[in-house]
């Protein structure tokens, strides 16, 4: 029986131990998720703009630096009138007092499209360690520098020079090559823009190529230029090439040119020694000891004369939307086997080269028997190297109103072909269809509240009912219902948060109690002490009772019982098995326990009596000695 109880206790202790561990682990996980991220070190970020103020035809460099990270992602804000172009990334690593720290700098080119005061708002920087914000940067954009050739004094450090091809071809020049010189109004003409920098010159671009002249628009240059090396008149040049497109917006003959702002770093030639034979006149030493002079230049192309022709009126199709170029049309429909009333998704793709901004959705050759919906559109550019080349995908829903229809009619798209100088209409083949009659009418959803429908019908009898534009809608509800409902998630409501907090506190309390219980169950000494304390308390109450009635025999019996119980727990034996001989063997001679036990035996067999005073003395000594056993 005892061993069964012991096993049971052991099992309970083990289970409590497992539970305590599970709960501790749970709290650890909670701590890790809730607290640790907050303890992580904050990163340092900064943003600088250089120069702090710049003219409209120039650009500034925005450097965003983050310290203590290896990579980061800034959220570049949208600012009206400003555009940001990423220019590169640099990483710096430092050892300071034996500690390694790294910083990453991202550089953006900032361009403005108008003069005025701007502010780059605080930029949010996200890293693995968290997010941080830079400070807002206010700056001014001034009017563009108008002088074409401005030679400033050498002390100024920088000057602006317009380098037009043919004038200073040795340093840098710009070449514009349109695909053709005569185009139609709205036609997209591919153009190649090449900037040549002579080898040995270091150059920084301060802007993208900009068009000067009326009558044409230059497409946005979104991509990085291609970098190559070429020989022109036996001189080697580094060449930057942009592929873009010009679009004529005004009929007539127009003169255009393209310019780009750059800063050239020109090597300053060392002054030759008077003798002319010094070893330092060697080109090697020239390159080693020479410094660089910074020079701001505008590299401009030769003026080109281009002609914009009007579109002919003859043969213009009715559905012509202004699309000019070379296009192809492909159409697919899904599903082609359907029940009456089911929608068909029509995918129409216009691909090729041309002014896709004017390409509109192709149309059915006849819409009789069809219900058509507004199409959605999406333009996909093939690649940046061939501007104006891509495809526009239209998605349109169709529903056949007539069950006898056997095909989707031909789909047509009209455009102007500038090569042939004629209007063309592309037409696809009709797409065969199988439309089955719908067995069940699905349009009318069955209302659940029949009572309300009856009420509505009654109400309808009294009012003049007008035929609704959307037929088949379930009727209105006539009872407003509980009018204090909320469109908020439960966890944002105060009562839910209160209940959650209370539950959490309750759970925490229960967990603490469980952990205490597990600790108690796991500690046999503590259990023994508790039991001894409990039994001693009970025994002392009985002693007090026997004292009040002055019952010596009863008093000594209780004392013996208490001694046996307490010593049984300490010696781990049964209380009934403890005799005077055991006490004599294991306790010192002067122990009060021994004296009390002996007196109890004598009283039981010899009828010895004690005075009230003696009994009280016994009680005090007995209590202190028994308490000392724990």
């Amino acid at each position, binding site marked *: 029986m005892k061993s069964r109880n012991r096993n049971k206790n052991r099992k309970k202790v083990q289970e409590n131990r497992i539970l305590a561990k599970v709960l501790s682990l749970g709290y650890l996980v909670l701590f890790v998720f809730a607290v640790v991220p907050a303890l992580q070190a904050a990163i340092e970020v900064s943003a600088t703009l250089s120069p702090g103020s710049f003219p409209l035809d120039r650009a500034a460099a925005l450097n965003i630096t983050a310290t203590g990270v290896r990579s980061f992602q800034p959220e570049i804000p949208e600012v009206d009138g400003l555009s940001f172009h990423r220019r590169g990334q640099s990483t710096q690593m430092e050892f300071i007092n034996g500690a390694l720290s790294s910083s990453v700098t991202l550089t953006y080119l900032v361009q403005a499209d108008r003069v005025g005061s701007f502010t780059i708002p605080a930029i949010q920087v996200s890293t693995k360690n968290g997010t941080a914000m830079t400070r807002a940067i206010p700056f001014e954009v001034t009017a563009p520098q108008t002088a074409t050739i401005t030679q400033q004094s050498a002390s100024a450090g920088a000057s602006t020079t317009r380098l037009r091809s043919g004038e200073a071809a040795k340093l840098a020049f710009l070449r514009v090559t349109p695909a053709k010189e005569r185009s139609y109004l709205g036609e997209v003409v591919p153009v190649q823009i090449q900037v040549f920098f002579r080898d040995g010159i270091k150059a920084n671009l301060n802007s993208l190529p900009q068009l000067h002249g009326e009558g044409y628009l230059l497409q946005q240059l979104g991509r990085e230029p291609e970098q190559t090396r070429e020989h022109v008149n036996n001189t080697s040049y580094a060449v930057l090439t942009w592929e873009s497109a010009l679009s004529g917006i005004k009929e007539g003959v127009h003169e255009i040119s393209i310019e780009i702002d750059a800063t050239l770093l020109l090597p300053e030639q060392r002054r030759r020694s008077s003798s002319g034979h010094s070893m330092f006149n060697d080109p090697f030493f020239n390159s080693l000891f020479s410094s660089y002079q910074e020079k701001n230049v505008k590299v401009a192309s030769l003026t080109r004369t281009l002609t914009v022709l009007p579109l002919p009126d003859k043969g213009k199709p009715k559905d012509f939307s202004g699309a000019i170029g070379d296009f192809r049309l492909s159409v697919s429909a899904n599903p082609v086997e359907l029940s009456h009333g089911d929608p068909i998704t029509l995918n129409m793709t216009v691909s090729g080269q041309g002014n896709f901004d004017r390409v509109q959705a192709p149309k059915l050759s006849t819409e009789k028997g069809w219900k058509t919906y507004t199409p959605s559109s999406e333009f996909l550019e093939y690649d940046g190297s061939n501007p104006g080349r891509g495809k526009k995908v239209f998605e349109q829903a169709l529903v056949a109103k007539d069950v006898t229809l056997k095909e989707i009619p031909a789909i047509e798209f009209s455009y102007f072909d500038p090569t042939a100088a004629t209007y063309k209409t592309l037409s696809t083949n009709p797409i065969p269809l199988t439309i089955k009659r719908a067995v069940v009418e699905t349009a009318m959803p069955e209302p659940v509240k029949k009572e309300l429908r009856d009420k509505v019908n009654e109400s309808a009898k009294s009012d*003049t*009912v007008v035929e*609704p534009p959307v037929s088949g809608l*379930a009727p209105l509800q006539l009872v*407003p219902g509980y*009018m204090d409902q909320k469109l908020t998630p439960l966890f944002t409501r105060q009562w839910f948060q209160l209940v959650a907090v209370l539950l959490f506190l309750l759970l925490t309390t229960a967990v603490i109690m469980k952990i205490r219980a597990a600790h108690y169950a796991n500690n046999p000494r503590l259990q023994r002490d508790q039991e001894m304390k409990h039994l001693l308390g009970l025994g002392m109450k009985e002693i007090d009772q026997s004292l009040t009635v002055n019952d010596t025999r009863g008093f000594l019996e209780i004392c013996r019982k208490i001694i046996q119980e307490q010593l049984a727990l300490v010696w781990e034996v049964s209380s009934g098995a403890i005799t005077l001989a055991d006490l004599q063997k294991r306790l010192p001679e002067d122990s009060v326990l021994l004296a009390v036990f002996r007196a109890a035996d004598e009283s039981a067999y010899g009828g010895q009596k004690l005075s009230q005073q003696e009994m009280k003395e016994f009680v005090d000594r007995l209590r202190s000695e028994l308490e000392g056993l724990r």
Partner: protein
Amino acid sequence: MRALYQFLMGLCCCLLFLFCSQNVWADEQLQQTRFQDAVSAYNKGEYKQAIEGFEALATQGISSALLYNLGNSYAQAGQVGRAILNYERALRLAPGDSDIRGNLELVRKEKGLFQEEPSFGQRFVTLLVLNQWIAVAAISFVVFAGVLLLPFSYGLKSSSRYGIIVMLFLVIAIACSGAMGQYKHWHDGVVVAADARLRVSPFESAAFIGTIQEGRLLHPGKKHNTYVLVVDEAGRSGWLAADAFESIANF
């Protein structure tokens, strides 16, 4: 004397209670009357008047019935975007209402707003609405805590007990996933303008990317001035004028 004092106090309390309940009752009566007036206007085909009536009521408080009626009124007035918006709002309050769901599907079908076939994950997440998922998770958590803290001798075998704990833990995990899936779309909104156009950047001068149908569901991102960055069901993103978009959750 004391008895008289207690009697007077009791009388005052009764009168106060009667006065308050009468006020509440009068308010409810007024709401009922306004609601019936709007219903009557709808039945007569005066949809604009019905919309005004329901919208005025909605400023005092909302219910699924009110939003549903508002959805019907907008649908009949030809304002598909606002009709769908109000049906979606009504569904968040009463996800099991077949009238709301039926009318929403009907209006979508009528206007060609066909939705793509949802994936398994999307179908799973839409089994319940956000608050239902939260409720399932919360109740499961309470039971989970109860079972975990129950004394071991409480009539349950150790293996069954751990089985129940694991099962409840799984239910909590699933409900939390469902709630997170739903919350991801909590701030979704609807295109409420007829000729909404997406732009490449949030400025009036920016180029158009394409058009977007009224009534389409959109997921909003960051805002800039009067534009909001949105992503549609097909994954297309662009800047949309803020007045052409209304969030389902922001009422």
